[in-house]
């Protein structure tokens, strides 16, 4: 058997196992959380189904109505589908769909629904007080024209930002629900839950740990592969392989500890750094604009940065330790081989 071929493919195999663990977690995190309205038709020839226009989602291309359906084959699982044909009544407050089958209409979502993407129906929400930050592209509505529900009170306002305190905020936070609360909120382009923003930053050290564990495992496996190619002792290969497998187990548990808020994640790629930069720049700038530079979110960000640096340093030391161990192990192995070559007298 060709040792180099085995080394290369075993490395691919290790990466595939790691990637399977990562993809399981990423899929869980990137699944769009939705609230649904289940409807069935009552007549054999179908019926007109009416639902509030707040169930419609807007983007640059217009209004969209979505449902969730079970996919098949490589598109298995509960998926978001767009309903292409619907009409609005004369008051534009009711959407009408000609029902020929049952529908699970999406009435709210953790992010802009995308056809074909996985969805998870959320029926039970935790409630608690929260701060919602509304960003208006064309200026905030004047104070006398503001219409807010009783559970919301304004904490601060500038030309483009409105900060509200909500006594009955829901977790997980669904921006679509927050935007369709009233005629005032519907004019905003984005809304952020500051509690979820804090939770996001609190998760960053955990992500750094996951990355560190993955790189450590990869280093162990690489060392094992190199030792295998160079005909080093089986003990070294086995110990490296065992350590790498142990890091896979640790990786699984570390991944389970991470729970990112869905409302702050990008639509398609979880590694879209530009999206995070844009979102948090907007949040931080808005808070500064409101004169809230001492908001707890800033402290959380500072703490997360320090903790990430500490985790980075720790894993760098671990990696240096592994490499040093490899060098020592190699020297010991070679000296033993040399001793065994000396003929006994």
């Amino acid at each position, binding site marked *: 058997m060709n040792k180099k071929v085995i080394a290369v493919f075993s490395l691919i195999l290790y990466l595939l196992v790691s990637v399977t663990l990562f993809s399981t977690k990423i899929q869980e995190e990137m699944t769009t959380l939705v609230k649904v309205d289940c409807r069935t038709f009552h007549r054999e020839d179908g019926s007109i189904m009416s639902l509030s226009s707040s169930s419609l989602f807007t983007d640059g291309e217009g209004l969209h109505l979505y449902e969730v359906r079970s996919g098949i*084959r490589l598109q298995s699982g509960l998926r978001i589908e767009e309903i292409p044909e619907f009409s609005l009544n004369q008051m534009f407050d009711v959407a009408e769909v000609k029902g020929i089958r049952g529908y699970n209409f999406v009435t709210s979502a953790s992010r802009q629904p995308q056809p074909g993407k996985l969805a998870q129906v959320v029926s039970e929400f935790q409630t608690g007080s929260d701060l919602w930050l509304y960003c208006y592209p064309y200026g905030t509505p004047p104070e006398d024209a503001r219409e807010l529900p009783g559970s919301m009170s304004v904490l601060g306002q500038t030309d483009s930002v409105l900060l509200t305190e909500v006594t009955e905020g829901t977790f997980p936070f669904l921006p679509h629900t927050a935007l369709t609360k009233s005629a005032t909120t519907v004019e905003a382009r984005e809304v952020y839950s500051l509690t979820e923003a804090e939770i996001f930053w609190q998760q960053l050290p955990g992500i750094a740990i996951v990355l560190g564990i993955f790189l450590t495992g990869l280093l162990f496996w690489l060392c094992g592969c190199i030792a295998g190619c160079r005909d080093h002792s089986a003990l070294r290969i086995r110990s490296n392989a065992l350590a790498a497998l142990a890091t896979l187990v640790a990786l699984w548990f570390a991944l389970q500890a991470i729970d990112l808020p869905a409302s702050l994640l990008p639509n398609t790629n979880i590694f879209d750094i530009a999206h995070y930069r844009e979102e948090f720049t907007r949040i931080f700038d808005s808070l500064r604009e409101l004169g809230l530079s001492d908001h707890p979110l800033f402290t959380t960000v500072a703490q997360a940065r320090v903790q990430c640096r500490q985790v980075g340093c720790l894993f760098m030391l671990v990696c240096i330790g592994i490499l040093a161990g490899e060098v020592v192990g190699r020297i010991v192995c070679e000296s033993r081989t040399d001793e065994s070559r000396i003929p006994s007298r």
Partner: protein
Amino acid sequence: MKQKSFYSNFLALVLTGLCVIPYAYVLINSFFSTTGTGLGAYYEVFLAENQYLLRFWKSLALSTCIALVQVAVSAFAGYGFAKAKFPGKDLLFFLLMVMMILPLQVTLVPNYLMLKEMGLLNTVYALALPAMFVPLGTFIMTRSFQSVPNEIIEAARLDGCGAIGVVWRICAPMNKSGLVCTLLLSFLDSWNMVEQPMVYLEDAAQYPLSVSLATTPPGDPAVQLVCCILVALPPLFLFANYKRELVEGIAIGGEK
């Protein structure tokens, strides 16, 4: 003479190029997703959702199980045909060769009816059981065990070795290439199966990666091309690592 050599080399190069074109197409176009150029399709397959990889692992486990059982069955059956003496041996071996020549589609319906009677339809056993008893492995092992001298087997028997011991301790180690060849061919056969899952399984969620890949309409062709690369990995490894054994094993099967 030199000119003849040049033309044959050129022809070989052109033919190699023609063979490589599809693989190059898969590799190059996997970077051109409908959403843009880059690693988007790789992200979709390897990171965005785990279903591709889970199907990959399921297919790998199924194919490995089928291959291992088929090697065991083929080794014992091959030993029987090669070394045992029993009435109707030649007729049975002839029937085995006839079954080997039969196209897969001929046996699909009888297998379906048998599996239905056994209540195994729509289970993973419906894929595994028929694939474990494919005659090609028995044929290769028979041919390869025929090369083992009878004297060695008789000596082993005198030393108290039973039939199982003779197969695993004497014949198998002497015919590694035959065993590896059977293992590879049966693995590849089950790894590439398409018709059997479509006939024996009703639930599309149980389909192995090969069928899912063949039956899913391409939302994004680049994603399917990356799936093709994923599907190609195990056969590529097997060929890269065992090409000598594969060639030797096939040569043994072809010897008169």
